[in-house]
């Protein structure tokens, strides 16, 4: 889809409904995927997306065109998702946890053969704190000190929660048997 980002922003600043819809059409899918990653179910993800777009339209005037539009949109969505999680009190009690490394080697690690939905589902099955911190650190690329500041936790907590998330995810991945031909088979219990 070809679109002129500048015109789109200008239209949204003028509260032009067509421009608003176009912005939604262009970025809605990617932003919805973010929402799905941060929430536990689709209904919550839809709520977050709605709230995020309302914020986007209301605060589009504060967007400066010197940074990429998508980056700004993603940050709005992430913040909205974090607010949502705070309201749900998912982030209330994040404590340091002892993480015992399971010794799994990542050297041959690849996700290439997993479906995106599968990976998404794995993340959503993480405990809320782990899920959020994994998203922020691994996918969004924030540093632990930034995450600690954003969530009001210590940097150590962020690290330990992330380690736990990582361990849990590895365990989940290991449940899937990977074959040399790249196909993935569910482990038989």
């Amino acid at each position, binding site marked *: 889809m070809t679109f002129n980002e500048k015109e789109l922003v200008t239209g949204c600043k003028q509260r032009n409904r067509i421009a608003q819809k176009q912005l939604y059409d262009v970025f*809605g899918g990617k932003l919805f995927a973010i929402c799905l990653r941060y929430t536990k179910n689709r209904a919550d993800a839809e709520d977050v997306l709605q709230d995020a777009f309302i914020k986007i*339209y209301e605060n589009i005037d504060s967007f400066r065109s010197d940074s990429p539009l998508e980056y700004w949109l993603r940050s709005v969505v992430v913040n909205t998702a974090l607010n949502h999680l705070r309201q749900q009190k998912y982030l209330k009690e994040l404590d340091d946890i002892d993480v015992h490394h399971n010794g799994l080697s*990542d050297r041959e690690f690849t996700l290439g053969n997993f479906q995106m939905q599968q990976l998404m589902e794995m993340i959503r099955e993480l405990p809320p704190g782990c899920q959020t911190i994994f998203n922020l650190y691994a996918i969004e690329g924030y540093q632990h000190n930034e995450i600690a500041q954003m969530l009001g936790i210590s940097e150590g907590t962020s690290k330990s929660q992330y380690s736990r998330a990582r361990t849990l995810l590895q365990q989940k991945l290991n449940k899937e048997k990977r074959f040399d031909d790249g196909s993935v088979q569910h482990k038989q219990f």
Partner: protein
Amino acid sequence: MMDPSNINNFEDQWRKALQEACETPPPSVWEGIEARLDKEQEKVVPMWWQSPKVWYAAASIVALLLVGGGLWLSGIKTDSNSPQVAVTRKPAGVLESESAETAQHAPSVGESPNTEKVAAAGGPKTASIKAGQQEPIESRVEIAAARNGNANEERENTFAKTANSAIEQAGVRVGVDTQRPAAKYDSVNEVINSASVAVENVQPSEIAVVKAAGNSNAAGWEDQNKTISAQLLASLPYSDLDVYVQKRHVFFRPHLQIEEPVKKKKPKEYFAGVGVMPASFNPDVQLKEAPMAFSAQSVSQRRATTGSSEARASYAVQTQGGVRLSKHWSVETGISYLRGNSAYEGGGYVLNPYNSLSSNVLENALAGLNTAANSPAADKAAGFNNGALYIDVAKKVSNNYQYLQLPVQAGFTLNPDKKFSYSVLGGMMANFFLVNELESASGDIIRTTASDDIYRGTNWAATTGLRLNYKLSSNWAANLTGSYQKAVSSGFKSNQSLDSHPYLYGVSWSVRYSF
């Protein structure tokens, strides 16, 4: 521990897999967003409408329309000397469509050529009746415009068509009701066959009423009409009479109710008060140069010109009146009597050894201002040049003034409607000189009045003050006013050797009555 090189691999994999992930949201999400955006816009619009400026503008437009309409209506009123009453009487049982038609024809009752024809054929009497001259009881005049069988059908158009098929030959009977609108109907047959009548009750215009009488044919038709009337009456609901009465007033234009809203004026609040002001008055008399007798005394020259005035206890009795112009602003004036006491210390005095006359510096200077024979200080003007002695004694002499004061002050009041309020005052004051009493070297009092032409009759002063106002009741208030007055012009007519710019500090206690 985890190998750091692998951590990057782990995160990179996840990031690559999920950062560009995309999943189309369900349509309900956009619908929800759109609904919320609409709601937001609705919120914005009322905010705009809630702006008081918009309502002020609308209110002013409505007010302009009201005033304009009022003026327009009053303009119409002046065009005609009396109210116009259009009365439409529409009996039940007659087709409604006829009323419009008859309404068009009815005003031409008196002028219609067909009427003349009827009058000519039937030998009717024609009467001109003033509307106001009708007797209340027999106030209704019925016109029976009978159409006989020979009459052609065009006559029918003269007044009104009657759709009553029972009256094949019957003409139209037009009842011209010239009674006043408030008059009662006492009869039922008044209504009956009159199709529709419009009466323009304009004074002094006259309604020409054609009364068909004396003609046997007409009389016959009239009898016939009466019977028809009775038949129709039976079918009419009585309550319709009320409707007629109400309809009489539909087109009445009340001309007395229009002008009232225009004259809405907030009454001004006036106040009057009396008070007394203990004050410190200083005439500030300055001796510019030593008077003649003193300048001749070389020894005393310096000392004589260094005199100074000293304030003494003074007072003023004040009356004041004013008007409150707005919530905060007021203007006030009044009349005050000021007794300004002071002392003057001007060194010693000169003494003529030959005639024992003495004069202090101020009285000698005063004498120099006016050498007229009748001046109270005239005897001090001369006689000190040769051989006069200067007695170097520091002595204070009293120098008292009396003024009549007329202040004009504007006041700005803070907390105007509260129990305690504060006003800042400022304005001008005209001081009308009455009397000056100067104690002479010999102890006599030299009394100078306005007629002596030494002091200016009117001396202007600037005045300012701060007033504390305590409301005792809705009408009464107590005031405590600190004021300062300073003359802007010299008190002396000639300021060649003497100059005076009196000033005053005072605290006034007064009571005020508002009405």
